[in-house]
């Protein structure tokens, strides 16, 4: 088993936290994992991305060139990384902020209104969890329980009410992806 993921968006969208949750959940489930951020002088507001590798074997390069999955939280990220996805890979994108439709036909595409749903739940910052939920449902590389268990380890200062909100956002993302996958299966 080898899953290589790129998560990308604006700085401040919780991109790094998504990756760390995923890596931590993989570790909890006994996998080899790596997480590496793109790092640069911009601390806020610039583009941010990280690579996560989850594998049953020792991990070679932590930097992912051809991902199995891309989670794009804004349009520049989609434009930059969608072309690099492996054939029959997965693209999850934040359709609240991305007004173009991905062109590739050889991959699974799931549009998630992540920012919109997070706002409706009460905090736009939970958009990352909506997208992460969609990923969990679509790929199943790590379990929902492992991710929920990792929230406290990755974000130790989070209040209980914010943890609850994050879990709610995660579940909402899982539901949306489930619905979309069912529709696409019934079409094909």
């Amino acid at each position, binding site marked *: 088993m080898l899953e290589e993921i790129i998560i990308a968006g604006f700085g401040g969208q919780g991109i790094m936290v998504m990756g760390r949750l995923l890596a*931590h959940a993989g570790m909890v489930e006994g996998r080899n*994992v790596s*997480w590496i951020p793109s790092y*640069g002088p911009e601390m806020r507001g610039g583009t941010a991305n990280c690579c996560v590798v989850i594998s049953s074997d*020792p*991990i*070679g390069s*932590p*930097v992912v060139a051809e991902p199995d999955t891309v989670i794009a939280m804004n349009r520049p990220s989609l434009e930059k990384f969608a072309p690099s996805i492996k054939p029959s890979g997965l693209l999850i994108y934040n359709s609240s902020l991305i007004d173009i439709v991905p062109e590739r036909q050889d991959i699974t595409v799931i549009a998630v209104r992540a920012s919109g749903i997070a706002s409706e739940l009460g905090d736009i910052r939970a958009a990352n969890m909506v997208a992460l939920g969609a990923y969990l449902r679509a790929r199943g590389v790590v379990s929902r329980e492992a991710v929920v268990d990792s929230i406290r380890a990755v974000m130790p200062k989070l209040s209980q009410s914010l943890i609850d909100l994050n879990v709610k956002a995660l579940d909402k993302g899982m539901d949306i992806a489930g619905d979309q996958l069912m529709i696409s299966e019934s079409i094909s």
Partner: protein
Amino acid sequence: MSERLLMKGNEAVGEAAIRAGCRLFFGYPITPQNEIPEYMSRRLPEVGGVFLQAESEIAAINMVYGAAGAGARVMTSSSSPGISLKMEGISYIAGAELPCVIVNMVRGGPGLGGIQPAQSDYFQATKGGGHGDYRMLVLAPASVQEMADCTADAFELADKYRNPVMVLGDGALGQMMEPVTFSKPPVSVSELPPKPWATTGARGRAPNIVNSLHLENEELEKLNLRLEAKYRRMKSEDVRAEVIDCDDADVILVAYGTMSRVCRSAANMARSAGLRVGIVRPITLFPFPSEILSELAKKGVPFLVVELSLGQMVEDVKLAVNGASPVQFYGRTGGFLPTPKEILARMESVLKDRSQAPCGAVPER
């Protein structure tokens, strides 16, 4: 504590140092190693240690000199431009035969360079770096777990040889997170072997002098020869390398640190394409695993050295191989990490060249 923790490489270095009995850290901010001083500033006071942010890298390494001379396990960390500033102090530390650990999370150069991963400080690290005839023992981890393990070993080796030991990482290893396990119990500082040469106050004994000045020719040469004997002993007792699938290899990749991981991915791709690829991954860059390479070279198998530089370690590989088999080089700089596909393509061209050219006549690059 044997649970798996998800840590950044830089944080793993900090925790491993504390568990190895390091109670003093002197440093100065520079990207991409800031998590090390930040971690130490948080953790050292919890264990009765001292974190001090120095006014410069020069001051930091000289504080290390003072503390090491006073017998303490002490560490500093920096990244390439800062390590250049430390070179004066490192030369004095080597000359005065003081044990200490220096971490370099290498970034691209020369000059201010960039902040992305690089391996362009290999020469500086392994050939002395500062003035005078000296070497550091250099460890090159390739994972977060090894960042922790090499840091712990670095303190032991520094004390064993009374010599500065460098942990040579890079921006990627420092920034990435992987699971890490601290399986050994923490070192008890009070149970560390005494250092009778240290300047701890001359109570009931003759004064100790920590010094690298020897104005008499005989004295200085005696020091130089003693240092050389020490480096020879390192070569016979503490060479480390990982050798993977080299027995029946068509081509052998030689790479260390982050680059060796990309080579591992490339080797996996190559094997599925039917190529037999071996890997030699030096873990000690000084002492260099020359004998392992010269043994493998006897079979005439071609080597492809891959580095995040324009070719530094390749010189040591060529010295080890000594013309017995072809050595080619591939490197990227500027912060680019070659992809496994790039390396695979180079391997294929090495094999193609080999089928056309006689042994040893393969053109470089």
